[in-house]
């Protein structure tokens, strides 16, 4: 049950967040240690402190390089991507008042993929920033399409999800078409990357961009957390509580599109994180967003890092696409929510 927001409640939340942070650090360390060949946790630790110039421990250069250049950046990006997608899910579920809302289900991730692929194939600019901008345009196009198909906010919540299904099918088809017919298929990465996501190939510059975007989004969302609470009983009810509904919706949809676009342009479309995590977090800290948003972000980070570890060890000598792992957890969860959301007799 949602604890009261008294001082005791705040202290409990702080403790919970602190413990989650410790778990996250441990998960990232494990993700860095585990791989094709395992590296001892102490070596991981010393490699990081070496790189940060804190120690000068004698560590095989190859292990140090694997830890720093390959695995740590990958684990941290996984954490940020998980946090970002979980935030998106929490926001969309509140704004659309639909337990199934999240960027992947609504086709926003698919739209971002299409946007990013267009930028690569058409060769507009280069680098992660223009890729993100393309993805952003695609994510917004998907939002627009879903809004158009579901006829704004006036139709029932189920229409939004149906519109999302249509949008994701359309944009996934477009992505597949563009990738398979483009002359420079190598450059556009493979279809699997865009449809199911992958943390292979992420590097430190990606981390810096993503860190800025996730922190910015988290700050905006926390500032609007009270307004999100007011959406509990719908748009009109929020307006009667003094919330500038249109402005909040626009800003938060834009933040969601920005987060999704940045994440998708780096690691492809990863599904169901935004769906599963906010529900799990809500179960622990209750539905009020000042607590839910940070809790979702942290839980999402942990979930994604663990999912990445699983994707690398579940099949020998192979890395399973990350989206496969998240879907294996997410789809049963989706079914449970759908089942519980059926009209009560």
């Amino acid at each position, binding site marked *: 049950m*949602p604890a009261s*927001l008294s001082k005791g409640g705040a202290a409990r939340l702080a403790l919970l967040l602190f413990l989650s942070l410790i778990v996250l650090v441990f998960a990232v360390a494990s993700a860095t240690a585990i791989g094709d060949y395992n590296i001892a946790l102490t070596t991981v630790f010393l490699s990081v402190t070496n790189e940060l110039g804190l120690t000068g421990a004698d560590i095989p250069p190859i292990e140090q390089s694997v830890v720093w250049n390959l695995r740590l950046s990958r684990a941290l990006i996984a954490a940020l991507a998980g946090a970002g997608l979980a935030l998106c899910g929490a926001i969309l579920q509140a704004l659309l008042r639909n337990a199934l809302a999240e960027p992947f289900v609504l086709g926003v991730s698919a739209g971002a993929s299409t946007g990013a692929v267009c930028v690569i194939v058409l060769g507009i600019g280069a680098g992660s920033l223009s890729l993100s901008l393309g993805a952003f345009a695609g994510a917004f196009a998907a939002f627009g399409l879903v809004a158009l198909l579901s006829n704004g906010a006036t139709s029932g919540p189920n229409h939004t999800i149906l519109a999302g299904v249509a949008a994701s099918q359309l944009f996934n088809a477009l992505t597949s078409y563009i990738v398979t017919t483009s002359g420079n298929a190598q450059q556009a990465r493979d279809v699997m990357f865009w449809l199911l996501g992958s943390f292979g190939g992420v590097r430190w510059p990606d981390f810096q961009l993503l860190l800025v975007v996730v922190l910015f989004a988290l700050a905006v969302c926390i500032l609007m957390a009270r307004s999100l*609470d007011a959406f509990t*009983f719908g748009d009109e009810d929020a307006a009667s*509580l003094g919330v500038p509904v249109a402005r909040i919706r626009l800003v938060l949809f834009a933040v969601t599109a920005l987060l999704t676009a940045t994440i998708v342009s780096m690691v492809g479309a990863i599904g169901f994180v935004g769906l599963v995590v906010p529900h799990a977090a809500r179960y622990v800290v209750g539905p*009020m967003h000042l607590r839910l948003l940070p809790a979702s972000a942290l839980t999402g980070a942990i979930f994604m890092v663990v999912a990445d570890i699983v994707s690398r060890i579940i099949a020998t000598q192979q890395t399973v696409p990350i989206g496969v792992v998240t879907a294996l957890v997410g789809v049963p969860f989706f079914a449970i929510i759908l089942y519980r959301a059926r009209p009560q007799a």
Partner: protein
Amino acid sequence: MSVVAENLRWGVRRKIIVSDVSLSVAPGETLGLIGPNGSGKSSLLRLLAGLRRPASGRVEINGQDIAGVARKALSRHVAFVQQSAATDTNVSVEDVVRLGRTPHRSALAGWSEGDEAAVTDALQRVGMTSRRTQAWQTLSGGERQRVHIARALAQAPQVMFLDEPTNHLDIHHQIEILRMVRDLDLTSVIALHDLNLAAMYCDRIVVLQDGQIHACGTPEEVLTPQLLKDVFRVSAHVDASADAGRPHIRFSAG
């Protein structure tokens, strides 16, 4: 606070729903809005509460045009209780009533003693203090309605708009809620279906038909057999002063 509407017009896609409505509610008065289905009661209520912008005309609350007042500032003294609020979120009674403090709090402000006092007082006034930590989903329709009125009270409003607050409630709860609203020391406008309840609890009644005001006055003045026939298409007998000087309507079965 007084509420004054001048020449309000509003419609959707060429269909006129509220047409040239002017009315005024005195401070502390309870005004009933009655009319057949589709007569524009809910829409008029939303225009008055500033939830919709009129196509033309203006609404003044306490002498100030609400078009020029920020949503949040307006919500500090105007509350709106919707017909049947619903949510899938697992919130507690207390969470819902706390939402009423939203317009009084800044984005990150802590929970103040004033907020706490407003919530406690609001819960007490609707008799839901003992249900404070109960899950909202487990409440009955009448209890939910009372919690929503408590939430509106926690807003500390001086004007309250209620859209058919007694819908789906048993007669005991209908009377209980209307008595409570009448006894509150604030200006209220209530859209109602039940004509006898409107007669019992409203100081004045506005009768809407096709988006226009058909009649306006005290229950005795307004609720006549002729009006009931013209507007509601029923034949009825009216006891002029059945209960404490209030008219009572008996509908004819024939």
